[in-house]
């Protein structure tokens, strides 16, 4: 395969990894943020955690793989992004560390204070990454100051511009909605009702934020000159999915509603990558300083090797990860008699 084709393939693969991560860990983060609010009693909280219990770790590997794939295929992108967004990534890591440990530790001691502490660790560890990833992706689409040595020249405050913050709010709200519908779908009884009631309110917030986001995207990014006033099917379908999800929530068709919020997440992240392509880090200092799939990529040899590895192993991973979702497809109850220890 030609060098350009390989570079494009890896841009698309990394986009898919991020999209997969946002889709999977998106409802995970939502569930984590909702845990202290939707779970009134201890067994209810356990039931809520159990909706993602077998999956959250595997979901998080999508992030690690996205990071690893970026390092392997576009080392310059990895270097500029990770060193540039350093403080945000530090907070993201602290969040993920607390969250992962909390899932494992919270039920291993019966002391209510111990459990409450870890439940809030799950909340913080879900909220911080959700917020920061939104801020990060909005800034990736908008562009950040990068000099002629591919070095980021801003700081944390540079990222916290209005568009970045709006992106952060958008991901938090979207993941809350996505997670609430997931809980409504996966748990029986009261919790499902509470999650539905929450999803109805969250949906309104998501719609409002989406409108703001669409408008802001026309102003803050170069979407118009790149994709035109009519940005094409992907962003438009994303908006349609958001609207449709409201209808399905109202009719309590949770499977469909979840399908719609999934589409919303997938298509929104895809739009961010569409805005970026073929750039991977947009420089606001000078467009000529932007990192692109050609100046940021690994050698043709490395990309070829990695393509072969990915072609062999990605289908295997998808099959067994999908299979475990099938195993745990049934609804969970918070009835203590039916909970096993």
């Amino acid at each position, binding site marked *: 395969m030609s060098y350009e084709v390989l570079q494009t393939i890896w841009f698309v693969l990394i986009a898919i990894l991020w999209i997969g991560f946002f889709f999977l860990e998106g409802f995970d983060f939502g569930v984590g943020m909702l845990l202290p609010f939707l779970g009134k009693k201890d067994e209810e909280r356990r039931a809520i955690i159990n909706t993602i219990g*077998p999956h959250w770790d595997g979901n998080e590997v999508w992030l*690690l793989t996205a990071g690893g794939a970026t390092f392997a295929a576009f080392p*310059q992108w990895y270097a500029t992004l*990770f*060193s540039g967004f350093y403080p945000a990534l530090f907070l993201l890591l602290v969040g993920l560390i607390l969250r992962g440990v909390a899932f494992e530790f919270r039920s291993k001691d*019966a002391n209510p204070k111990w459990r409450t502490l870890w439940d809030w660790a799950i909340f913080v560890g879900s909220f911080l990454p959700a917020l920061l990833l939104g801020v990060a992706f909005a800034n990736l689409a908008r562009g950040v100051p990068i000099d002629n040595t591919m*070095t980021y020249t801003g700081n944390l405050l540079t990222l916290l511009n209005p568009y970045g913050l709006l992106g952060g709010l958008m991901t938090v709200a979207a993941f809350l909605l996505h997670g609430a519908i997931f809980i409504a779908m996966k748990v029986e009884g009261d919790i499902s009702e509470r999650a539905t009631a929450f999803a109805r309110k969250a949906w309104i917030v998501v719609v409002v934020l989406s409108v703001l986001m669409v408008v802001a995207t026309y102003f803050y990014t170069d979407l118009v000159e790149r994709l035109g006033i009519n940005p094409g099917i992907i962003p438009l379908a994303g908006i349609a999915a958001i609207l449709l999800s409201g209808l399905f929530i109202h009719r309590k068709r949770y499977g469909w509603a979840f399908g719609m919020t999934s589409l919303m997440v997938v298509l929104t992240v895809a739009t961010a990558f569409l805005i970026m392509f073929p750039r991977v880090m947009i420089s606001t200092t000078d467009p000529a300083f932007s990192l692109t799939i050609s100046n940021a990529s690994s050698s043709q040899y490395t990309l070829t090797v990695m393509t072969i590895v*990915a072609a062999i192993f990605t289908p295997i991973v998808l099959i067994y990860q999908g299979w475990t979702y099938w195993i*745990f497809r049934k609804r969970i109850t918070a009835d203590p008699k039916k909970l096993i*220890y």
Partner: protein
Amino acid sequence: MDPVLLSRWQFAITTVYHFFFVPLTLGLGWFVAIMQTRYYRTGDETYRKMTKFWGKLFLINFAMGVVTGIVQEFQFGMNWSEYSRYVGDIFGAPLAIEALLAFFLESTFLGLWIFGENKVPKGVHLASIWLVAIGSNLSALWILIANGWMQHPVGFEINAVTGRAQLVDFFALIGSPKAWLFFWHTISSGLVTAAFFVLGISAWHLFRKNKDERVFKVSFQMAAIIGMIALVSVGLAGHTQGQELVTNQPMKMASIEALWETEQPASFSIITIGDLTGKNLVWEWRVPKLLSFIACNNFDCEVRGVNDIQAEYEQQYGPGDYVPLMVITYWTFRLMFGAGIIMFLVALFALFLTFRNWPNKAMKWLKWMPLMIALPYIANSTGWILTETGRQPWIVQGLLKVEDAVSPNLGAGTILMSLIGFTVVYAALMVADLYLLTKYAKAGPDAALKESVDVAPTLVGTEN
């Protein structure tokens, strides 16, 4: 403060901390898999209790290894962006493959193992713990391939235009003897760590005459046998690695031995008291010719000293100090090696106990066994500190220096903030981790079984 130094401290703290948990994950996974296999085959309740008890401790430890591992994946780019640019073409590949091949495997099947006991056939449940053990050890292989390349770069060329290292032979990278020696040493150390963990906790219960005596006697015997085999394996790996060092990283070898001048035959320093410069010697104890044997399996060969190699490197790479911090390399090696010797004696004692049918006279010594759990941890940490600091001033041996590898955009304040942040969070988590490990280790098998009320009023999964 110097950003390079701060980034080095952060890398050292986060990595040593991460590797506190990893060896136990690597080794204990095999233990639990073997226990469950024996339960699967025999239906013997003892093995079910063993699986549950050690499995619970495995899970508590596993979580810590996973979350601290995420930092590893990110911090090359965060603190070492120039390194990432320079080596990304080569180094990124094993990292990405590690995630794709190993992380998905271990995390997905661990979820299935924890939550799926009543949802999948027994054989599938058993297979899932084996896949977890395979996945975590595979992950060790790929990260060691990456690290092996930093110690001894192979299969690359320097791109004339960009001046960066570029992969030209993937199979040279993954077939690097350095990496496979690391892998041999590391998985053996993992088994040693798990063995001592099991020995120590079992001994504690046996000493207190726990009602589940059989559970702990069987565990103890299994750990004694595996521990001894793994210790011999570590020793052989270490010896082979010493000889590889002489060829590929002679400076590391010389600084481990505080060997300033080239000697033929070379003597081995058991203890040197002085300032390690070779100039102000207070007292030393050396064994003649032993270093020659360590270096090349015969008692007469020449082993090159620090001064010689320094002169050669100055010619090759220009002026500079190419000597690692010898006080660290010298003493970490002796701590690692000393811990290994004591572990060997302890393992002999453990074998004696089990094969002499637990003689009463010897049982009082079991009291000291839990303390021995510290030994593999000392050896694991000092071993890696030795490996990494022995490469200084290089981040990639002979190609890139540490000082040229840091992210240029980071100020000292930013790094100091994250350094303090990670340290505080890690310290707090260590307290919680040790609390839970101790609690479950002391509580015995009953607490790890589903029926346990104290431990879990409402827990894990549902029946439907």
